[in-house]
C-alpha cells in the first residue's frame, strides 16, 4: 500500500532532491517511520525532542489537515496524497 508524499523545499534535500516520494504505510505514523527508514534525517526535522510532531510542520492528507483528523493515527488508503508544508509563522521574542 503506497501513498505519495509531496515535500517542501526544506525537506527535499533529505530525499536527495526529490519533490515527491512514494512511501508504504497504513497511517501517517507508518509513513513517517518508513520515510525515516528510506531517507534517514526526516525524523529529526518532523519531530521535536519528545517525539511529538513539530508544531511548525503542516501535514495534509488529500488536502485535509491531519490535526483536524486523527493526527499521527490518521488512516490512509492506497494512492492518498500527503502534503508537507512548513508553517509561515513568526512573532516577537518576548512571547514565545
Amino acid at each position, binding site marked *: 500500500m503506497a501513498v505519495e508524499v509531496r515535500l*517542501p*523545499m*526544506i525537506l527535499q534535500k533529505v530525499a536527495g532532491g526529490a519533490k515527491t516520494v512514494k512511501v508504504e504505510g497504513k497511517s501517517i505514523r507508518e509513513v513517517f517511520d518508513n520515510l525515516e527508514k528510506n531517507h534517514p534525517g526526516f525524523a529529526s526535522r518532523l519531530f521535536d525532542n519528545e517525539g511529538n510532531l513539530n508544531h*511548525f510542520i*503542516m501535514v*495534509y492528507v488529500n*488536502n485535509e*489537515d491531519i*490535526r483536524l483528523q486523527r493526527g499521527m493515527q490518521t488512516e490512509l488508503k492506497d494512492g492518498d496524497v500527503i*502534503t508537507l*508544508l*512548513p*508553517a*509561515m*509563522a*513568526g*512573532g*516577537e*521574542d*518576548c*512571547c*514565545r
Partner: protein
Amino acid sequence: METSLPFCLPWLAGKTAAAELKDRPESSFPLARRYADEMIAHAREEAPNECCGILAGPANEGRVKKLYRGINAEKSPVRYNIDPQQLLSIHEETEAKGWAILGIYHSHTHTEASPSATDVRLAFWPDSIYLIISLKQPGEPVIRAFSIRDGQIEEKQVAIGG
C-alpha cells in the same frame, strides 16, 4: 582571529550595507506600488494584531502578480501563523499556475521592520523573501525585505515600481 581585526575593520566600515545593495541589483525585491499600498492597508486593518500574507508570481520573472491576504490563525499582536488550510490552498493555486511564493509578509505594529529572533528561527521558506511592515510610526509605515536562510539574514532593497 584577533590579530587580523585591525586590517579587517576599516575595510568593513567603508562598505556600508546601502552601498552594497546598490552594487548588486539582484539584491532588490521589485514590488508594484499597489501591492505595497495593499500590505500597508492590511497591516492597518488588522492592527493591533499582526497581519500576514503571501506575494506570488511567475518564478522565472520574479514579479509579484498576486497578493493573498493571509488569515492570522494566532489573531495576536505578537505572533503570526498563516491559517494552515489557507496556506495549503494558496500553495496549490500557485503550483498550478507555475508560480512561486516570492514573498511572505507580516506586520510589526509597534516595533521596527526588522526580523525578530523568532521570525528568523521560524523562517522555513528559504526561497521566499520575508517582508515586514512596521507601523511603529503610524503615519510613516516602513516596509523592509529580507532573505532568511539557515539563520542568515540578508536585506533586500524593496524596489517600488509602477
